[in-house]
């Protein structure tokens, strides 16, 4: 396995035993993602993309096949070791942001470091959290609570939280699902900027518009890979924003 391979899926299967009927959510997916890639996993509901995402995110174990994350065979690990893998190797960004309410942005970002197996001194925790918030352009909002932040800002806090443990993989599940179109482009801009800095990103989405910001699109159907190809005519967030502003000015929505 090449050193720069972040994810290697080998004939991954997931079967749910519910009652008498076995549900085959994922039926043999093999996939390799290298460091620095920006991949969109697409598919309609029921295509198995959420199940795949849970397994890539080490939240769930496959019932068949093998999964190597950053050189570790995750498919054989126990609960506690899976938790450690999530803590050290994966940063999650969710559709619903999933921030802790009544907890400042800074403390939300510091939270994953509480669960590090190696103790991080509190001043270092603070420094790293501030750093991550600055990276997503929220350095001045560290003391704000989630209910004092807009949706886009909340998602930026979530991204900062995902980055704070320097993961090998940033895993985003419909990160723009709860955002309006302009904010969605802004968030995709954040992802593109992070990817330019070398961070590997895997994003699950069902919106083609959003997927166009990535570099590679994997389309699933019925638990299998339908297509896997590089994105043509890739959208660039800055340009899209400019275009959007021009449109808005035309209808006098923005000054």
């Amino acid at each position, binding site marked *: 396995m090449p050193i720069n391979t972040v994810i290697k899926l080998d004939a991954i299967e997931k079967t749910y035993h519910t009652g008498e009927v076995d549900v085959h959510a994922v039926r043999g997916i093999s996939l390799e993602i290298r460091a620095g890639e920006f991949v969109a996993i697409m598919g309609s509901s029921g295509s198995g993309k959420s199940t795949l995402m*849970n397994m890539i*995110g080490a*939240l*769930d174990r496959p019932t068949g096949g093998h999964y190597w994350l950053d050189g570790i065979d995750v498919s054989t690990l126990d*609960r*506690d070791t899976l*938790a*450690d893998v*999530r*803590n*050290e190797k994966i940063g*999650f960004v*969710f559709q619903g942001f*999933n*921030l*802790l309410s*009544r*907890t400042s942005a800074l403390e939300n970002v510091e*939270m*994953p470091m*509480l*669960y*590090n197996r190696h*103790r991080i001194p509190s001043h270092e925790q603070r420094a790293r959290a501030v750093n991550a918030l600055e990276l997503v352009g929220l350095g001045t909002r560290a003391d704000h609570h989630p209910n004092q932040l807009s949706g886009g800002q909340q998602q930026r806090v979530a991204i900062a*939280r995902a980055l704070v*443990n320097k993961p090998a993989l940033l895993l985003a599940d419909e990160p723009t699902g709860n955002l309006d179109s302009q904010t969605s482009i802004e968030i995709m801009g954040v992802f593109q900027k992070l990817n330019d800095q070398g961070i590997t990103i895997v994003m699950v989405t069902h919106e083609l518009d959003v997927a166009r910001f990535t570099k590679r699109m994997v389309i699933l159907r019925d638990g299998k890979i339908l297509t896997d190809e590089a994105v043509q005519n890739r959208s660039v967030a800055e340009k899209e924003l400019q275009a959007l502003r021009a449109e808005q000015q035309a209808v006098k929505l923005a000054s």
Partner: protein
Amino acid sequence: MRIIASLKIAARALRRNKMRSLLTMLGVIIGVGAVIGAVSLTSGATKQVEDQVSNLGENVITVFSGNFTTGGMRGGWGSAPTLTLEDTAAIRLLPNVVAISPEVRDRAQVLANGLNWNTQILGESPDYPQIRNWDIASGSMFSDQDVKTLAKSAVIGRTVADQLFPNENCVGQTIRIRNLPFQIVGVLASKGFNLFGQDQDDVVIVPYSSHMHRITTRTFVNSIQVQAANDKVISVVQQEITDLLLARHRSKEQDFTVRSQLELMQTVTATSRAMGFLLAGVAAVSLVVGGIGIMNIMLVSVTERTREIGIRMAVGARAADILVQFLIEAVTLSAIGGAIGIAGGVGFSQLVAYFKDMPTVTPVFWIIVAVVSSAVIGIVSGFYPAWKASQLDPIEALRYE
């Protein structure tokens, strides 16, 4: 995960529902408060009784004469002429007897200063104040010489002094007992009421010889007060006195009774101890109820915060981290409740002590018991909810609405 971070999270979670946290704690507060309050009051009562018993004198053994039976009528303890001054002298020679006083009792009208007063006239030896642990407030006790010479000397109690010589120093004055003039040589310090509600200061004490020859004409004594050297030899001395008197009286039947203060103390304190255990039992039940309240609220809390648990698991919290977090929260609840309960219990007993003039003692042992039991309640009642939280599936928990 570090403990300080867990404590912070717990504090935040408890602050979020202040009213609910307070109500949850109330069970433990009442339970611990009741234990501490009950124990403080009963220990205070026990202490008071112990003080009163030691007020009777230290390491005192009392020998009562037997009951007097004539023609089937029995006179009760102290009525039979079985104890004599010779018995007293014999007992005095036993080892570990440090003081002894034969006691003769009678009531008489006492006159002085144009006033009169009916009081108890005791005939005692000069050892009496030492045996009874009783100070002479002014003047002095009569002497052995007074006993030998049947001196008409008297030591009077505070009440008698107040009744016959109001606003006057009475040492050196004369009182008349059955028309005989006695000179007051000393006044006893006030001792107050005894265990049975009698005024101990309502007394006139004269040499036993004077009592037996001048006031009454008796050849026997009512009882003998003996002081043992220390509390360890009391029962030995008690047995020796019994053996000695049985031999001296050569009677088949034991015509006397030997009692020690220790037995009295045990009888009296056993009652208040039983009361204390009863109260502590009731309090323990309310502590258990408090624990159930904590468990209930922790279960609600786990359900409410399912999503938070999911988030924490997603970013790498192990099952043990979640378990510890919720356990700390439950223990924090019960520990704060326990602390408030201890403060409340002590405060309550202090209030009672202040307004009801009852002594209270809060034993450190029971405070430790309260601290430990509230911590145990937190752990026991928090464990099931915390364990339930730690066993959640992160995927399900994240999806929970």
